[in-house]
């Protein structure tokens, strides 16, 4: 395959190049590569990014297939430009053993769109009582451990899990939330919560656990990763910790840099997310943190839900936003177009850093690297329309938002897995491609 004439987003700059792909790898990058009669993608006027990596999604399978399945989630992912996604273990059963982890891995391969990496639980059943079988899960393919959805309440148990995991190089991804401080809150504690008469979640509910995890990382000299940072104070603590040489990395989500808590006025339950969308001061700090590298990654925390989980009173609605199909658009519009990040920086936050943190392939366009790409038009404007989501979760508060940045092709291991336009067909190819809502899937022969 040749990707021709695209503006290639390298680690240190953007250059117009041709890319030759052979056997799922990038074989050659040059100003001009002669046609070889094989498949070609005309990337003239488009930008070629390293395949995006989302290290924080919820695929809901097994157990909550009404909300999402691995297949629907993977379709949504490739539409969003993602070539690798890491799914959280809060399924039913919880991914806290090698059998469950293997199942997700197997289903991911069977679906055959993007690469799906399961994340194992830190504790059995995410109950925060006993450590899960971390070593076995790692052998079965878990790329990290997390009790996402809850924090491990017992600091001693968290310490032991971090120490144990350190022994074989697997990281803890920490969902930071003190339930006592949350105290039944459903939105950010501030003026908007007061106007709406909804119970607030103070920043401290997130910050005290961020502080604890940083302290454990320092004490144990072991790396720790902070999930979905939403507070300005959390950003500051992580920045200070990095300066002090503590091995901490962190992620944030588009809804924390694109929205503020006024969005909850009107009681749209699609605005309900954990941690909550906070205030302008937080949004600005998140942008600053992304710019100066305090926040290493942009993830979606893609949390699909069924309409029934949201069409209820605000207090009763499920937390979560379906975000994997809008993440790239938000990043291009609110970060690149707004002058916060350059394209190489954006690619670093959405691909290189997640790969580095989790030890995954990809993350960079260079010869010899895996041929994972997101090929996109940056200027094309589009309007968020959840009825067109491929994810089963239509729960976005951003319907009607105008964004730039449209993914045209997603290439995984040298194969086009998503693409709207027709491609040059492989001569004598055995694989027939079928079109499933724009997603090309291999027909089983």
């Amino acid at each position, binding site marked *: 395959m040749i990707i021709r004439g695209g503006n290639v987003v390298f680690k240190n700059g953007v250059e117009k190049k041709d890319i030759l792909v052979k056997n799922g790898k990038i074989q050659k990058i040059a100003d001009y590569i002669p046609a070889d009669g094989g498949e070609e993608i005309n990337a003239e006027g488009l930008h070629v990014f390293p395949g995006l990596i989302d290290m924080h999604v919820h695929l809901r399978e097994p157990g909550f297939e009404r909300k999402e399945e691995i297949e629907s989630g993977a379709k949504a992912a490739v539409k969003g430009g993602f070539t690798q996604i890491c799914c959280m273990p809060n399924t039913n059963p919880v991914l806290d053993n090698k059998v469950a982890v293997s199942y997700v891995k197997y289903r991911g391969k069977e679906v055959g769109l993007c690469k799906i990496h399961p994340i194992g639980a830190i504790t059995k059943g995410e109950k925060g009582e006993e450590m899960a079988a971390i070593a076995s899960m790692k052998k079965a393919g878990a790329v990290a451990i997390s009790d996402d959805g809850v924090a491990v309440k017992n600091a001693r148990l968290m310490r032991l899990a971090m120490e144990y995991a350190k022994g074989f190089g697997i990281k803890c991804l920490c969902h930071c939330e003190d339930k006592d401080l949350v105290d039944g809150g459903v939105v950010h*504690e501030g003026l908007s*919560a*007061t106007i709406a008469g*909804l*119970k607030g979640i103070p920043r401290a509910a997130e910050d005290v656990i961020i502080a604890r995890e940083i302290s454990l990382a320092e004490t144990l000299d072991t790396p720790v990763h902070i999930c979905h940072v939403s507070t300005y104070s959390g950003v500051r603590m992580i920045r200070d910790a990095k300066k002090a040489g503590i091995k901490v990395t962190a992620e944030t989500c588009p809804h924390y840099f694109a929205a503020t808590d006024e969005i909850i006025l009107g009681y749209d339950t699609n605005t309900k997310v954990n941690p909550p969308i906070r205030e302008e001061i937080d949004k600005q700090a998140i942008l600053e943190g992304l710019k100066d590298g305090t926040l290493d990654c942009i993830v979606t925390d893609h949390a699909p839900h069924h309409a029934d989980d949201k069409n*209820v*009173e*605000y207090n009763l609605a499920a937390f979560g936003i379906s975000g994997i199909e809008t993440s790239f658009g938000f990043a291009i519009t609110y970060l690149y177009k707004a002058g916060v990040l350059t394209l190489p920086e954006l690619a670093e936050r959405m691909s290189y850093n997640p790969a580095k943190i989790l030890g995954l392939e990809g993350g960079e366009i260079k010869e010899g690297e895996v041929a994972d790409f997101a090929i996109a038009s940056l200027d094309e404007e589009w309007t968020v329309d959840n009825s067109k989501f491929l994810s089963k979760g239509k729960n976005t508060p951003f319907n009607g938002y105008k964004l730039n940045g449209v993914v045209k092709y997603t290439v995984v291991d040298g194969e086009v897995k998503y693409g709207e336009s027709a491609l040059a067909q492989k001569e004598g190819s055995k694989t027939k491609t079928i079109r499933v809502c724009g997603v090309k899937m291999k027909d089983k022969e």
Partner: protein
Amino acid sequence: MLNRKDLLGLIDASKEEITEILDLAEEFKQRIKRGEKKLDRLSGKTVTVLFYENSTRTRTSFEQAAKYLGATTINIAAGTSSVAKGETLVDTGKTLDAQKNDFIVMRHPMGGAPYLLAKTVKAGVLNAGDGMNEHPTQALLDMLTMRETFGRLEGLKVAILGDIKHSRVAKSNLFGLKTMGAEVRMFAPETLIPKGMDKLGAKICSSREEAVKGADVVMGLRIQLERQQAGNFPSLGEYAANYGVDEKVFALAKPNAIILHPGPVNRGVELTSGIIDHERSRIEDQVLSGVAVRMAALTLLNEARNNGEATK
């Protein structure tokens, strides 16, 4: 004109709308006092009173208001448990709509629930209290009693003391009174004041004396035992001693100041018995004001429906 389908809160109520409700309520109040309790302004209409929380005062007040207006009333005591376990609010709303109810009066323990119901049903929805959010007819009845006493609302100094944080009454009063040009002062333990109340126009005071001094209206809010149990303050005794209103504190208010309380009162906690039974107390008068403003709200919403003007 009150050109609304629903009355969900005072957050977006205009001065004209509030005045219109209070004017009509004043008329109804006089008629009730004269013994005229059989009006036909809502005859042939059905008003369903749907309460997901216990209440005697507000529920009976709405029922009485609807009955005085000649409507058929249906009372559903849903109980809090059915919120979590049973039929969803949306489905309940669809059922009530299918029965061709004209109005649904709802009390619900969760903020914003009436907005969800109003969006779902064709019937007009009246919010009878939603969680910590609003209780518009309570604020309207408070304003009616104030206006009757002082002949105006503009320029009045209203001190609200008690559990501001969990009080839909405080918030509706704040919205309504600010719109009408009154000054609203609030005082409570810091744990019972929600974030940003000052930005909404309330003057947050640092002592009960500061709040009450020179006030025209002193309003106590119920301190629920469960708030103490949840750790918001150490004991009811400590609350009464530092935050309650007694005769000594009330003496700082204007000589013709009045005392209000949405009820039910905890005697000796937020207000002493001496204050509750004070000659300047209007707590009992509030009850009749309640029936009158609810009659007015139902009547005006019904007129808007009949005229096809329920645009909001």
